[in-house]
């Protein structure tokens, strides 16, 4: 057991080191683009980590977490638009808005279970999507540009490397936080709710409260991801709220491993790299295969997701675990 | 006449754990055979393996002269194996009448009569009053009667009852036993699993005892009554 743990820690540390050193390599190779790309991977990974709290730990299959990415992104955009660029204020307001919305949405959604829960979370996300798209003063369909990144005291977030490290730090804290949570009393209660909610109530747990809290925490992590995402692109897009965003987050969590600490991040890295590679497919394959892949990469991503759904039960994280046990 | 059912060397596993080890059973035409054993010894699994509801790892099952091992359950059911499953398995969203009709099969079973809706209602007059009720609205006893009636409607060569008296009030339990006695007298072959051993000692021709997935004892009722050490070792009686 302890051996397994130490190996996992080792892998975690190695990954962290790789991420931490990446901007140096990128600078050397004169490819700052990949810093931006990796920043995006980290941010989407953060959202997946957030979703995993609801999906993997508490067993709530939310198909609407894009909503909270949207809340984060739009709060930043709207406040920036009125000329205030203070990051603390942005984040504070975003988190409050996220808490209020997720509390209400969660209360309604948690009245249902199973497929109805999946659908109603989707419906709420759609509802916000249409509201955003319909509101001209907030850019509507066009989205909103940010004049600049949020200002964060003396730290200059306009610098891509600095911003990258901010995201890396946030993700690291999120990973550690989820790890602590999974071992705690709260963690064992939400796991119990996932396994057998009726029994939990009969034991004396107010299950709704715990599930609601898990939902809110999960939403708030996504709000932070939305905040970062808007800052990365200096743009807040209604497409963050689209249902395909929620779908992709689920893909990442399942691909990486539900209810594992590092799984969602792994899943995000995998899926986004695959998309990047396919969409810019460079290998010179014969018979126009290359250009076919380049222009129809969605076909392959679709197939990839189908195969994940068919074959993957425990996710990539479990591969690593199994590999470790064999070793 | 030969046997309705002959099963040999049946092995079954759930994932990594093996549940049945070379189990065997024979049922002659018109015979009433019981399958006994403590909880979790593999009785239900055995029956499911015979029915094709659970795939078997090895072994052979001859039913009405045909090798049926490996065939899907609906094929075996159509050959004439009827089951009253553990937990009754009434279709909750069908009415009593529909429960009987939906899976009925019109053919000559091992009994002299061909079962119809009317003859089932004659056997269980209590059901007739509830023709339009949904399966889920029946009391436990009524559900049990319905499950037996539904199995009879397939006009089986062999009727298997898995814990048919579980959770029933004593009065109803008694009714079921007398019904089984009647079916036996009319020539139906029966395989019965039940924890009430006393009534079975009177009815069954032969008994099999399962212990940890193996048949550890077989014999007729008088042999069983005469061996208290077997009864106490495997059945705690």
């Amino acid at each position, binding site marked *: 057991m302890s051996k397994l743990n130490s190996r996992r820690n080792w892998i975690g540390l190695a990954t962290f080191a790789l991420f931490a050193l990446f901007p140096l390599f990128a600078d050397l190779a004169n490819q700052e683009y990949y810093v931006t790309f990796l920043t995006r991977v980290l941010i989407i990974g953060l959202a997946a980590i957030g979703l995993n709290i609801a999906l993997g730990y508490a067993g709530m*299959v939310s*198909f609407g977490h894009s909503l909270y990415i949207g809340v984060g992104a739009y709060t930043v955009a709207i406040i920036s638009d009125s000329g205030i660029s203070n990051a603390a204020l942005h984040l504070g307001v975003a988190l409050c808005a996220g808490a209020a919305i997720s509390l209400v949405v969660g209360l*309604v959604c948690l*009245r*249902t279970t*199973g*497929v*109805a829960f*999946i*659908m*109603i979370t*989707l*419906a*709420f996300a*759609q509802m916000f999507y*249409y*509201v955003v798209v319909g*509101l*001209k*003063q907030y850019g509507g369909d066009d989205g909103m540009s940010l004049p600049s990144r949020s200002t964060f005291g003396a730290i200059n977030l306009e610098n891509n490397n600095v911003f990258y490290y901010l995201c890396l730090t946030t993700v690291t804290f999120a990973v550690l936080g989820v790890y602590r949570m999974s071992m705690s009393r709260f963690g064992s209660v939400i796991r119990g709710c996932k396994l057998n909610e009726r029994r939990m109530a009969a034991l004396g747990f107010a299950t709704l409260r715990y599930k609601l809290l898990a939902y809110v925490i999960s939403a708030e992590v996504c709000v932070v991801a939305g905040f970062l995402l808007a800052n990365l692109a200096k743009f807040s897009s209604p497409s963050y709220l689209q*249902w395909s965003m929620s*779908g992709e987050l*689920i*893909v990442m969590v399942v691909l990486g491993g539900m209810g594992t600490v590092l799984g969602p991040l792994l899943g995000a890295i995998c899926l986004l790299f695959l998309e990047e590679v396919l969409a810019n497919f460079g290998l010179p394959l014969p018979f126009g295969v290359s250009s076919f892949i380049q222009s*129809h990469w*969605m*076909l392959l*991503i*679709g*197939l990839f*997701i*189908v*195969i*994940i*759904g*068919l074959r993957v039960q425990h996710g990539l994280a479990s591969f690593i675990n199994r590999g470790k046990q064999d070793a | 006449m030969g046997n309705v059912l002959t099963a040999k060397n049946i092995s079954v596993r759930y994932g990594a754990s093996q549940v049945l080890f070379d189990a065997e059973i024979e049922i002659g035409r018109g015979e009433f055979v019981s399958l006994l054993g403590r909880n979790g010894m593999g009785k239900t699994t055995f029956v499911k393996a015979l*029915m094709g*509801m659970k795939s078997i790892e090895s072994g052979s099952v001859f039913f009405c002269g045909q090798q049926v091992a490996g065939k*899907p359950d*609906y094929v075996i*059911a*159509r050959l004439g194996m*009827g*089951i009253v*499953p553990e937990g009754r*398995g*009434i*279709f*909750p*969203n*069908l009415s009593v009448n*529909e429960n009987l*009709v*939906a*899976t009925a*099969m019109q053919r000559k079973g091992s009994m002299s009569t061909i079962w119809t809706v009317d003859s089932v209602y004659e056997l269980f007059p209590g059901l007739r009053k509830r023709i339009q009720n949904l*399966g*889920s609205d029946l009391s436990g006893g009524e559900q049990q009667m319905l499950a037996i009636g539904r*199995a009879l409607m*397939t006009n089986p060569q062999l009727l298997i009852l898995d814990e048919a008296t579980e959770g029933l009030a004593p009065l109803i339990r008694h009714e079921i036993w007398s019904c089984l006695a009647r079916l036996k007298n009319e020539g139906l072959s029966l395989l019965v699993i039940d924890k009430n051993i006393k009534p079975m000692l009177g009815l069954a021709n032969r008994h099999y005892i399962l212990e940890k997935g193996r048949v550890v004892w077989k014999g007729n009722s008088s042999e069983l009554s005469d061996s208290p050490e077997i009864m106490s070792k495997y059945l705690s009686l």
Partner: protein
Amino acid sequence: MSLVLTQLLNGIQLGALLFLLSAGLTLVFGIMNFINLAHGSLFMMGAYFAASAFAATESFSAAMLAGIGGGALLGVIVERLIVAHMYERSHLHQVLVTFGMVLFFNELARILWGATSIHAGSPKAFSGSVEILGNPYPSYRLLIIALSLAVAAGLYFFIRHTRLGMLVRASASRSDIASAMGVNVVLLKRCLFAFGAALAGLAGVMAGPITSVQPGMGEPILIMTLVVIVTGGIGSIRGAFFGAMVIGIADTVGRVYIPMLLRATFERSVAQAIGPALASIMIYLLMACVLALRPQGLFPVKHG
């Protein structure tokens, strides 16, 4: 007043189209416990098959045959290759697999038929409009209503009063037992999935002449369909029917009268700003309200 009635008819027509889609979806969910996000893709493929057949033959009957038959065939293939392996899996995995299928089919349609929308011909006999309550009404839309009512009645009769229908219901609640009682449940499920796909194809055929046949045309309507079945009660044909009507009417009437109401109460610019936004989330609001009060939907199925 007659205008209101015509709008009601519009709502019913939207409901009718939604019902064609919901029926298949809810049937597959109710019987196989399988949640199929790719239902919208089957709808799209049905529309494409029909449009291609129409282009080749200039006959709407041929288009209909192609849409329904093609949908059913595609249903069988998809069931064999993918869906059959997913019945026992969690809803989450089903959502995932079918989400992937949505992406796949959208791209496939683009490869096969191009990114542009293609022409879907309408039947000559139903190309005009008829006078109803003093307002002209497209006769094609009446055809949709009639067809959908016929499907609803047929389905009701099939499910309630035929022996096959009983078996379908029996397999819905206890497929293991049904199989042990001699029902070939695997075949039944395959046929049923194909049937659901054929209904989706039919919906695609009927939608072709009024909407554009293009990649991704399935998603907006899929989401509406999901709203319908969840509001109506998942797995119930009755729920799908009434849910479709409620959603269809709420959407249509909301679209017309909410902006009007707002305009009467607020000044024009405000009304124009929030009117459409409110109208477009009407159905989601309705659904949220229904579920908050009745988590099982309006007409939940009865299970033991």
